[in-house]
Protein backbone atom coordinates (compact mmCIF):
# COMPACT_ATOMS: atom_id res chain seq x y z
CA UNK A 1 0.00 0.00 0.00
CA UNK A 2 1.20 3.54 -0.71
CA UNK A 3 2.22 5.62 2.28
CA UNK A 4 0.16 8.09 4.21
CA UNK A 5 2.05 11.39 4.38
CA UNK A 6 0.94 14.10 6.80
CA UNK A 7 2.87 17.36 6.96
CA UNK A 8 5.83 15.77 5.19
CA UNK A 9 5.94 12.83 7.63
CA UNK A 10 5.50 9.30 6.36
CA UNK A 11 3.05 7.46 8.62
CA UNK A 12 3.44 3.70 8.38
CA UNK A 13 -0.23 2.81 8.85
CA UNK A 14 -3.56 4.26 7.79
CA UNK A 15 -5.10 3.35 11.13
CA UNK A 16 -4.45 6.03 13.74
CA UNK A 17 -5.35 4.88 17.23
CA UNK A 18 -6.46 6.58 20.42
CA UNK A 19 -5.53 5.35 23.85
CA UNK A 20 -8.58 6.52 25.81
CA UNK A 21 -10.83 3.98 27.45
CA UNK A 22 -8.37 1.06 27.60
CA UNK A 23 -8.83 -0.99 30.76
CA UNK A 24 -5.10 -1.09 31.45
CA UNK A 25 -1.75 -0.66 29.74
CA UNK A 26 -1.32 -4.34 28.96
CA UNK A 27 -4.65 -4.52 27.08
CA UNK A 28 -3.71 -1.27 25.37
CA UNK A 29 -0.34 -2.67 24.31
CA UNK A 30 -1.87 -5.80 22.77
CA UNK A 31 -4.49 -3.70 20.98
CA UNK A 32 -1.97 -1.24 19.57
CA UNK A 33 0.26 -4.05 18.32
CA UNK A 34 -2.72 -5.84 16.72
CA UNK A 35 -3.87 -2.61 15.06
CA UNK A 36 -0.51 -2.12 13.36
CA UNK A 37 -0.79 1.61 14.08
CA UNK A 38 2.18 3.98 13.72
CA UNK A 39 0.57 7.09 15.23
CA UNK A 40 -1.49 7.20 18.42
CA UNK A 41 -3.16 9.97 20.40
CA UNK A 42 -2.50 10.93 24.01
CA UNK A 43 -4.15 13.61 26.15
CA UNK A 44 -2.48 16.25 28.32
CA UNK A 45 -3.48 16.34 31.99
CA UNK A 46 -2.11 17.52 35.31
CA UNK A 47 0.89 15.46 36.35
CA UNK A 48 -0.61 14.28 39.64
CA UNK A 49 -4.13 13.71 38.35
CA UNK A 50 -3.56 9.99 37.86
CA UNK A 51 -5.00 8.44 34.71
CA UNK A 52 -2.03 6.27 33.91
CA UNK A 53 1.48 7.56 33.57
CA UNK A 54 3.48 5.26 31.37
CA UNK A 55 1.52 5.60 28.16
CA UNK A 56 4.37 7.59 26.61
CA UNK A 57 6.92 4.98 27.62
CA UNK A 58 4.67 2.33 26.08
CA UNK A 59 4.42 4.16 22.76
CA UNK A 60 8.16 4.71 22.71
CA UNK A 61 8.83 1.02 23.34
CA UNK A 62 6.43 0.01 20.53
CA UNK A 63 7.96 2.53 18.11
CA UNK A 64 4.63 4.37 17.77
CA UNK A 65 4.68 8.14 17.33
CA UNK A 66 2.61 10.10 19.89
CA UNK A 67 -0.05 12.49 18.65
CA UNK A 68 -1.00 14.81 21.53
CA UNK A 69 -4.55 16.12 21.49
CA UNK A 70 -6.24 19.14 23.03
CA UNK A 71 -9.20 17.15 24.34
CA UNK A 72 -11.28 18.95 26.92
CA UNK A 73 -10.57 22.43 25.53
CA UNK A 74 -13.60 24.64 24.89
CA UNK A 75 -11.90 27.77 23.56
CA UNK A 76 -9.17 28.58 21.07
CA UNK A 77 -7.05 30.07 23.88
CA UNK A 78 -7.21 26.86 25.94
CA UNK A 79 -6.41 24.71 22.93
CA UNK A 80 -3.44 26.85 21.89
CA UNK A 81 -1.97 26.71 25.41
CA UNK A 82 -2.53 22.94 25.63
CA UNK A 83 -0.87 22.42 22.23
CA UNK A 84 2.14 24.46 23.33
CA UNK A 85 2.41 22.44 26.54
CA UNK A 86 2.19 19.22 24.54
CA UNK A 87 4.96 20.39 22.23
CA UNK A 88 7.15 21.15 25.23
CA UNK A 89 6.40 17.84 27.01
CA UNK A 90 6.54 15.54 24.00
CA UNK A 91 8.98 17.40 21.77
CA UNK A 92 6.67 17.16 18.76
CA UNK A 93 5.02 19.77 16.57
CA UNK A 94 2.13 17.41 15.78
CA UNK A 95 -1.19 18.21 17.38
CA UNK A 96 -4.66 16.77 17.09
CA UNK A 97 -6.65 19.95 17.57
CA UNK A 98 -9.94 19.50 19.41
CA UNK A 99 -12.08 22.42 20.50
CA UNK A 100 -15.34 21.15 21.86
CA UNK A 101 -18.60 23.10 21.96
CA UNK A 102 -20.23 21.27 24.87
CA UNK A 103 -19.77 18.15 26.95
CA UNK A 104 -23.03 16.50 25.89
CA UNK A 105 -22.36 16.24 22.16
CA UNK A 106 -18.57 16.77 22.20
CA UNK A 107 -19.09 18.34 18.76
CA UNK A 108 -16.37 20.72 17.56
CA UNK A 109 -16.98 24.46 17.95
CA UNK A 110 -16.27 25.60 14.38
CA UNK A 111 -15.52 29.25 15.22
CA UNK A 112 -13.03 28.47 18.00
CA UNK A 113 -11.56 25.57 16.01
CA UNK A 114 -10.69 27.68 12.99
CA UNK A 115 -9.28 30.44 15.22
CA UNK A 116 -7.06 27.94 17.09
CA UNK A 117 -5.96 26.28 13.83
CA UNK A 118 -4.81 29.60 12.39
CA UNK A 119 -2.86 30.48 15.55
CA UNK A 120 -1.17 27.07 15.74
CA UNK A 121 -0.25 26.97 12.05
CA UNK A 122 1.34 30.43 12.50
CA UNK A 123 3.23 29.07 15.49
CA UNK A 124 4.77 26.26 13.39
CA UNK A 125 2.58 23.36 14.44
CA UNK A 126 1.55 20.49 12.18
CA UNK A 127 -2.18 20.79 12.85
CA UNK A 128 -4.65 17.91 12.50
CA UNK A 129 -8.05 19.36 13.38
CA UNK A 130 -10.94 17.22 14.57
CA UNK A 131 -13.79 18.83 12.68
CA UNK A 132 -17.46 18.57 11.86
CA UNK A 133 -18.47 16.69 8.72
CA UNK A 134 -18.92 20.08 7.05
CA UNK A 135 -17.22 20.49 3.65
CA UNK A 136 -17.15 24.30 3.99
CA UNK A 137 -15.41 24.27 7.37
CA UNK A 138 -13.05 21.53 6.19
CA UNK A 139 -11.93 23.62 3.22
CA UNK A 140 -11.41 26.66 5.46
CA UNK A 141 -9.20 24.53 7.72
CA UNK A 142 -7.21 23.40 4.68
CA UNK A 143 -6.87 27.03 3.55
CA UNK A 144 -5.64 27.92 7.04
CA UNK A 145 -2.71 25.56 6.50
CA UNK A 146 -3.77 22.45 8.40
CA UNK A 147 -1.76 19.34 7.48
CA UNK A 148 -4.86 17.13 7.42
CA UNK A 149 -8.57 17.42 8.14
CA UNK A 150 -10.30 14.96 10.44
CA UNK A 151 -14.09 15.03 10.04
CA UNK A 152 -16.24 13.06 12.43
CA UNK A 153 -18.38 10.15 11.28
CA UNK A 154 -20.66 10.75 14.26
CA UNK A 155 -20.08 12.13 17.77
CA UNK A 156 -17.15 10.84 19.83
CA UNK A 157 -17.76 7.50 21.48
CA UNK A 158 -21.22 6.95 20.01
CA UNK A 159 -20.33 4.13 17.63
CA UNK A 160 -23.02 5.46 15.26
CA UNK A 161 -20.75 5.09 12.24
CA UNK A 162 -20.74 7.54 9.33
CA UNK A 163 -23.99 9.52 9.48
CA UNK A 164 -23.38 11.63 6.39
CA UNK A 165 -21.28 9.70 3.87
CA UNK A 166 -22.07 12.23 1.16
CA UNK A 167 -20.46 15.04 3.17
CA UNK A 168 -17.38 12.89 3.77
CA UNK A 169 -17.13 12.28 0.00
CA UNK A 170 -17.42 16.01 -0.66
CA UNK A 171 -14.69 16.75 1.89
CA UNK A 172 -12.45 14.14 0.24
CA UNK A 173 -13.13 15.51 -3.24
CA UNK A 174 -12.21 19.06 -2.27
CA UNK A 175 -9.28 18.44 0.07
CA UNK A 176 -5.66 18.95 -0.93
CA UNK A 177 -4.45 17.37 2.33
CA UNK A 178 -5.16 13.91 3.78
CA UNK A 179 -8.65 13.33 5.16
CA UNK A 180 -8.82 11.24 8.33
CA UNK A 181 -12.23 9.94 9.43
CA UNK A 182 -12.18 10.65 13.15
CA UNK A 183 -14.80 9.62 15.71
CA UNK A 184 -17.99 7.61 15.61
CA UNK A 185 -16.64 4.35 14.22
CA UNK A 186 -18.26 1.40 16.00
CA UNK A 187 -17.20 -1.63 14.03
CA UNK A 188 -14.97 -2.78 11.19
CA UNK A 189 -17.42 -2.29 8.31
CA UNK A 190 -17.60 1.43 9.16
CA UNK A 191 -13.81 1.78 9.05
CA UNK A 192 -13.85 0.07 5.66
CA UNK A 193 -16.64 2.40 4.52
CA UNK A 194 -14.57 5.46 5.47
CA UNK A 195 -11.73 4.23 3.27
CA UNK A 196 -14.13 3.33 0.44
CA UNK A 197 -15.45 6.90 0.57
CA UNK A 198 -11.90 8.01 -0.14
CA UNK A 199 -10.58 8.90 3.29
CA UNK A 200 -6.80 8.57 3.61
CA UNK A 201 -6.91 7.16 7.13
CA UNK A 202 -9.17 6.36 10.06
CA UNK A 203 -8.72 7.46 13.66
CA UNK A 204 -10.53 5.49 16.35
CA UNK A 205 -10.23 4.58 20.01
CA UNK A 206 -13.45 3.61 21.76
CA UNK A 207 -14.47 1.03 19.15
CA UNK A 208 -11.37 -0.94 20.10
CA UNK A 209 -10.67 -0.04 23.72
CA UNK A 210 -14.26 -0.67 24.86
CA UNK A 211 -14.91 -3.72 22.68
CA UNK A 212 -15.39 -7.00 24.55
CA UNK A 213 -12.17 -8.24 22.97
CA UNK A 214 -10.07 -5.15 22.18
CA UNK A 215 -7.21 -7.08 20.60
CA UNK A 216 -9.52 -8.92 18.18
CA UNK A 217 -11.32 -5.67 17.29
CA UNK A 218 -7.98 -3.96 16.68
CA UNK A 219 -7.08 -6.71 14.22
CA UNK A 220 -10.50 -6.34 12.56
CA UNK A 221 -9.95 -2.58 12.20
CA UNK A 222 -6.50 -3.05 10.67
CA UNK A 223 -7.91 -5.46 8.07
CA UNK A 224 -10.93 -3.22 7.44
CA UNK A 225 -8.79 -0.16 6.75
CA UNK A 226 -6.62 -2.18 4.38
CA UNK A 227 -9.67 -3.70 2.67
CA UNK A 228 -11.45 -0.39 2.32
CA UNK A 229 -8.35 1.23 0.85
CA UNK A 230 -7.94 -1.62 -1.64
CA UNK A 231 -11.60 -1.54 -2.62
CA UNK A 232 -11.46 2.21 -3.18
CA UNK A 233 -8.47 1.90 -5.49
CA UNK A 234 -9.92 -1.19 -7.22
CA UNK A 235 -12.92 0.82 -8.43
CA UNK A 236 -16.29 -0.54 -7.42
CA UNK A 237 -19.03 -1.42 -9.91
CA UNK A 238 -21.82 1.10 -10.42
CA UNK A 239 -25.04 0.56 -8.51
CA UNK A 240 -27.87 -0.71 -10.78
CA UNK A 241 -31.59 -0.76 -10.31
CA UNK A 242 -32.15 -4.10 -12.08
CA UNK A 243 -30.27 -7.36 -11.90
CA UNK A 244 -27.36 -7.91 -14.25
CA UNK A 245 -26.66 -11.61 -14.95
CA UNK A 246 -23.18 -12.79 -14.11
CA UNK A 247 -23.58 -16.10 -16.01
CA UNK A 248 -23.72 -16.29 -19.80
CA UNK A 249 -27.23 -15.78 -21.19
CA UNK A 250 -26.67 -17.99 -24.24
CA UNK A 251 -25.48 -21.55 -24.88
Amino acid sequence: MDDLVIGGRKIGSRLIMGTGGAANLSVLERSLVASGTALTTVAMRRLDAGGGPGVLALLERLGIEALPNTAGCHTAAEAVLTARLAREALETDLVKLEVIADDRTLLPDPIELLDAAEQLVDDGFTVLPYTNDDPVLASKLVDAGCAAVMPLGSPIGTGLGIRNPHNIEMIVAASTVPVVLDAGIGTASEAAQAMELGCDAVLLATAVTRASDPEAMATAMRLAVESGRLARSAGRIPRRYWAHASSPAVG
Partner: protein
Amino acid sequence: MNVLVNGDVTEVGPEATLAEVLAARGVPERGVAVAVSGEVVPRAAWRSTRLRDGSVVEVLTAVQGG
Protein backbone atom coordinates in the same frame (compact mmCIF):
# COMPACT_ATOMS: atom_id res chain seq x y z
CA MET B 1 4.54 33.50 49.91
CA ASN B 2 1.97 31.16 48.41
CA VAL B 3 1.76 29.80 44.89
CA LEU B 4 -0.81 27.48 43.35
CA VAL B 5 0.67 24.25 41.90
CA ASN B 6 -1.88 22.14 40.00
CA GLY B 7 -4.54 23.63 42.22
CA ASP B 8 -2.72 23.06 45.54
CA VAL B 9 -1.81 26.07 47.64
CA THR B 10 1.92 25.68 48.24
CA GLU B 11 4.04 27.76 50.59
CA VAL B 12 7.43 28.66 49.13
CA GLY B 13 10.29 30.91 50.21
CA PRO B 14 10.67 34.42 48.86
CA GLU B 15 12.54 34.50 45.55
CA ALA B 16 11.65 30.83 44.94
CA THR B 17 12.40 29.66 41.42
CA LEU B 18 10.14 27.45 39.34
CA ALA B 19 12.88 24.79 39.30
CA GLU B 20 12.95 24.66 43.13
CA VAL B 21 9.18 24.34 43.41
CA LEU B 22 9.07 21.57 40.80
CA ALA B 23 11.97 19.67 42.41
CA ALA B 24 10.28 19.86 45.82
CA ARG B 25 7.22 18.25 44.25
CA GLY B 26 9.23 15.51 42.57
CA VAL B 27 8.41 16.60 39.03
CA PRO B 28 10.53 14.66 36.51
CA GLU B 29 12.66 16.53 33.96
CA ARG B 30 11.27 14.70 30.94
CA GLY B 31 7.78 14.15 29.58
CA VAL B 32 6.22 17.13 31.35
CA ALA B 33 5.45 20.73 30.49
CA VAL B 34 4.91 23.69 32.76
CA ALA B 35 2.86 26.84 32.43
CA VAL B 36 3.05 29.77 34.84
CA SER B 37 0.00 32.00 34.85
CA GLY B 38 -1.03 30.82 31.40
CA GLU B 39 2.36 30.98 29.63
CA VAL B 40 4.48 27.95 28.79
CA VAL B 41 7.87 28.04 30.50
CA PRO B 42 10.43 25.99 28.52
CA ARG B 43 12.51 23.54 30.53
CA ALA B 44 15.64 25.62 29.95
CA ALA B 45 14.05 28.57 31.75
CA TRP B 46 12.85 26.73 34.88
CA ARG B 47 15.92 27.82 36.91
CA SER B 48 15.75 31.45 35.91
CA THR B 49 11.98 31.81 36.41
CA ARG B 50 11.15 33.42 39.76
CA LEU B 51 7.64 32.93 41.09
CA ARG B 52 5.53 35.64 42.65
CA ASP B 53 2.96 35.47 45.40
CA GLY B 54 -0.15 34.02 43.77
CA SER B 55 1.62 32.56 40.73
CA VAL B 56 -0.45 29.81 39.14
CA VAL B 57 1.73 26.85 38.14
CA GLU B 58 0.33 24.05 36.00
CA VAL B 59 2.37 20.89 35.42
CA LEU B 60 1.08 18.63 32.65
CA THR B 61 2.02 15.27 31.23
CA ALA B 62 0.69 12.90 28.61
CA VAL B 63 -1.96 10.39 29.70
CA GLN B 64 -4.22 7.93 27.90
CA GLY B 65 -6.85 9.76 25.89
CA GLY B 66 -8.38 10.54 22.55
